């Protein structure tokens, strides 16, 4: 919901309006409720006050009526007692029946008593049980002796029920006190006055409580004899002697509007109460109506706001729609130019922008495709790496070169692990390249590596920095170049006919053997070999045969020595053998004998191949310390052997 409101312009306009209008409606409802309530409270208080005033007046009238009755009865009774010390039985009965008639006519009279002028003895009573008792200490008696009096509500000594007693002196014509007439009044009549609900609505009621908070009369039935005192705010205030009005809870816990009056002459509190629910019902209705009307108006206005904002928002929505299509990749989308106002200009500007964007996008796409093709088609390997050594991209050339893709070798270290068997190679590869990344003009690196298919290859690699910190790695397969280099080097150092090392390489090897012998304190043997009768063979059988003899000789000589020894051809039919790590001259002799033996093979090729050889042997350090002296000594020894007839060897330094 919130998301929708945030996304939709119309929804936002409408919801904002709705919030404010609802607040307005709530405020209006509250205001009308409060004003209505205040008004109704006053109205309710007025009603209750007039009702309670009416009740008080009724009460006063009732008491007055009872007093008038009392005067009337009193006159009758006084006539009976006048001039006599007492009544005889007949007179008593007549008077009693008269009083009982009066009681029958007045339902609220409970008892009529005639009391003695002194001592308050009960002379006569409608309740025979009371006759003979004394009322001397009763207020209605002491006051009743003085004049007509109303004893305000008090608990009847017998029943503790609220009672009112009216009394008056009985006097004869001369003013002599004959007695006191007292009438106990039940409050049933008050109940009737109180119960009338005129003008008090459904829940309104009035009731009387006496000073002890005993309910004297109530509109509610059953409450009178419940014996429970209600301690409500109204009652407490009235019993404290106050009069006024307020809002409080009644004894049943119902919130009421109440008017209370302390009726001092009767020592009673009169309360008139009405439930707040009823009193303020119209306020609630008023508030409800104003809220409903407000809501209806707000709903109508909402509709208006909706329609208006739709109209307002339509061009914006169409531009938005086009913009969303463009954002979604559809560069062909165009916003309709519906109006000529700012919104129309917005649409035009948007369309122009989209056009430019579309063109730019096509150009960029083309360029991108070309660049991509270059990368893809480049035979050389091109890769992109982070400065951390992480590989970001490699082209097919790079994959072809090493046999691995970026997903397989995500970093330079991973690549090194795959292509170098030796740990030190791996390490130096990574260290070197990382170093190169930092340099402005790094060197070209050429190294051999193991291709994925197992072949040994050569690579030339160079890194160059890119703006933004990444580096481009260019790599080329230089295996073919390396192979041809090797070939040239071999040709320069070997005899092309026999494949044996030539003079240059021989000198090199001899030097190495000497160095090692000096270091190891060992010896080196040098055998100088010249084939016997080679010239004759060459002449007799041709150069091709001579070449064959030389090739075969080379093979047989190689078979005579260890792998570590060197057999070289110095030229023509002259060969040398370097025996490195020679323990003693005897070993050189043994080799010389072996050579003689292998090169003298009259049976081979019809006796035209191995016709013997002359061998001169010189040993380091016995016969010389350096190359030249050893070579010349061996050469000299060979000549000595040749001079001696050939097919023999001579040790240097031995007499010929």
């Amino acid at each position, binding site marked *: 919901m919130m998301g929708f409101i945030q996304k939709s312009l119309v929804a936002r306009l409408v919801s904002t309006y709705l919030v404010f209008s609802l607040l307005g409606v709530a405020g209006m409802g509250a205001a009308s409720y409060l004003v209505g309530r205040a008004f109704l409270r006053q109205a309710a208080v007025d009603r209750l006050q007039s009702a309670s005033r009416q009740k008080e007046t009724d009460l006063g009238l009732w008491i007055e009526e009872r007093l008038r009755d009392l005067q009337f009865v009193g006159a009758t009774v006084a006539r009976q007692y006048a001039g006599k010390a007492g009544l005889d039985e007949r007179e008593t009965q007549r008077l009693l029946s008269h009083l009982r008639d009066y009681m029958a006519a007045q339902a609220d009279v409970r008892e009529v008593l005639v009391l003695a002028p002194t001592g308050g*003895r009960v002379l006569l009573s409608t309740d025979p049980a009371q006759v003979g008792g004394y009322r001397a200490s009763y207020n209605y008696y002491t006051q009743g002796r003085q004049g007509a009096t109303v004893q305000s509500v*008090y608990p009847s000594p017998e029943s503790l029920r609220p009672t009112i007693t009216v009394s008056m002196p009985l006097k004869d014509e001369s003013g002599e006190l004959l007695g006191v007439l007292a009438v106990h009044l039940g409050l049933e009549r008050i109940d009737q006055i109180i119960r009338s609900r005129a003008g008090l609505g459904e829940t309104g009621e009035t009731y009387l409580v006496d000073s002890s*908070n005993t309910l004297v009369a109530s509109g509610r039935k059953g409450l009178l004899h419940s014996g429970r*005192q209600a301690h409500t705010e109204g009652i407490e205030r009235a019993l404290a002697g106050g009069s006024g009005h307020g809002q409080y809870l009644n004894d049943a816990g119902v919130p*009421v509007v109440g008017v209370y009056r302390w009726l001092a002459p009767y020592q009673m509190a009169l309360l008139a109460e009405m439930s707040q629910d009823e009193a303020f019902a119209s306020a609630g209705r008023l508030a409800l109506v104003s809220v409903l009307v407000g809501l209806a108006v707000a709903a109508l206005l909402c509709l208006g706001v909706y329609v208006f904002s739709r109209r307002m928002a339509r061009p914006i929505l169409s531009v938005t729609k086009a913009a969303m299509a463009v954002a979604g990749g559809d560069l062909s989308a165009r916003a309709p130019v519906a109006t000529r106002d700012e919104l129309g200009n917005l649409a035009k500007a948007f369309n122009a922008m989209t056009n430019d964007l579309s063109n730019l996008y096509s150009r960029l796409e083309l360029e991108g495709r070309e660049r991509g093709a270059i990368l893809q088609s480049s035979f050389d390997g091109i890769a992109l790496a982070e400065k951390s050594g992480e590989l970001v991209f490699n082209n097919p050339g790079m994959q072809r070169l090493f046999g691995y893709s970026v997903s397989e070798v995500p970093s330079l270290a991973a690549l090194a692990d795959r292509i170098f068997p030796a740990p030190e190679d791996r390490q130096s590869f990574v260290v070197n390249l990382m170093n190169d990344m930092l340099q402005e003009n790094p060197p070209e690196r050429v190294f051999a590596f193991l291709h994925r298919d197992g072949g040994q290859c050569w690579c030339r690699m160079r890194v160059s920095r890119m703006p933004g910190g990444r580096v481009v790695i260019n790599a080329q397969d230089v295996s073919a170049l390396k192979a041809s280099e090797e070939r040239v080097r071999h040709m320069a150092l070997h005899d092309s006919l026999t494949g044996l090392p030539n003079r240059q390489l021989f000198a090199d090897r001899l030097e190495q053997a000497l160095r090692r012998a000096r270091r190891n304190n060992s010896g080196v043997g040098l055998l100088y070999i010249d084939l016997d009768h080679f010239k004759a063979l060459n002449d007799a059988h041709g150069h091709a045969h001579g070449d064959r003899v030389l090739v075969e000789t080379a093979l047989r000589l190689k078979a005579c020595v260890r792998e570590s020894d060197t057999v070289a051809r110095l030229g023509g039919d002259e060969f040398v053998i370097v025996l490195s790590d020679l323990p003693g001259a005897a070993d050189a002799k043994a080799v010389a004998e072996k050579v003689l033996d292998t090169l003298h093979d009259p049976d081979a090729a019809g006796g035209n191949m191995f016709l013997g050889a002359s061998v001169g042997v010189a040993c380091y350090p016995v016969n010389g310390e350096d190359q030249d002296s050893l070579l010349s000594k061996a050469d000299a020894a060979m000549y000595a052997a040749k001079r001696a007839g050939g097919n023999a060897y001579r040790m240097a330094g031995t007499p010929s």
Partner: protein
Amino acid sequence: MRSGTFARRCLLGVALCLALGALAVMSACSGAGAGAGAEDDEFRIGLLVPLSGPPNIVTAKDAAEALVARVNAGGGLAVGGRRIKVRLLVEDTGGHVERTLSAAVRLIRQERVAALVGPYYSRDAIFVANATEDAQVPMVSPTASNPQVTLGRKYAFSVCLVDTVQGRFMAQYAFQVLGLRSIAVLYDESDTYPQGLARYFADAFVALGGKVVAQEGYPGGVTDFSIQLGRIRAAKAQALYLPNYVQDVVLQMAQARRAGFSGVFLGGDSWEEGTSVLELSAAQGSFFTANFAHGAMGEAVRRQAEHLESVAGVPMDSDGAMVLDALGVVLAAAQAVGSVAPVSLRAGIASLRDYEGFSGRLSFERGGDAVRGAHIMFIEGGQARSRKVLEPAS
């Protein structure tokens, strides 16, 4: 863009606050304040005493208030492990039945007292006892001595000597100690106390072998007793028993002497009220039964009495002693049962034994009438002195 959003949020916030405020006002207006009185931490005791009489017994009110002030000054009454403030609610009974009853019912129902001290007169106490019995609130009267007050009731108590015992005590003293044989009685027949005491005395005196030569009743409110006194004088009574209220007794003594009666006046504990009888010259040499004798107070009680005397500024008299004992019984019962609930208080009072009061030691082992001692007082030189002590009946 941001600040726009912020301003709009602020505006919405203010609007929401206004709406909530309006709702709060509405709900506050619809609720009505409920008042509740917290009276649980008070020990509410009602005192029914005539103050706007006649009669008026202001000294009793002063003494009771001094005692309550002293208890509260000490932090309140220790009840059930805590201290509770005592609140004395004094109601003027005015001197007539209606007002006494209204006041008593008001104290019980409206003021919700836990106990009532009073009323003073048996005629009132009998009716008030109906109300306390109904409401189950204990009533302890200082002076209502008629046996009808407590008869058949659970919640009515009286700390004074019951009239049956009082009448007998005086009858015995008159017959055995004073050696009187013929006695006249003049009594107010319209009031419970004089009527009852006159009868109990006369019955006891006759039972001892004495003779009641005249028994004259008169209606309340009469001020001229010459007819009755004439008859009494004619009967040659050695003594005249006057079990009436002091305002009558004062008139009767003077009128009796004027009428030529020269015998001894005897009376009941109503004579204790005030000093009007003691000061009367006709009363010198008379005897009456009394609950309180200043000189008979024990040492501990005397010290308390002296303290209260210094606070109230008047010497401890019978009015003070009796109201203090009635109030003291209520407080002692509360402490004994550890509660100020009316029903518990009643049980506490009913089981009180040997309570040391200002008017002597008293117990309630036989219903609501205190089992206690009394004195025969002799009036001499405007003062009353104990002549004989009645030990509590065992």
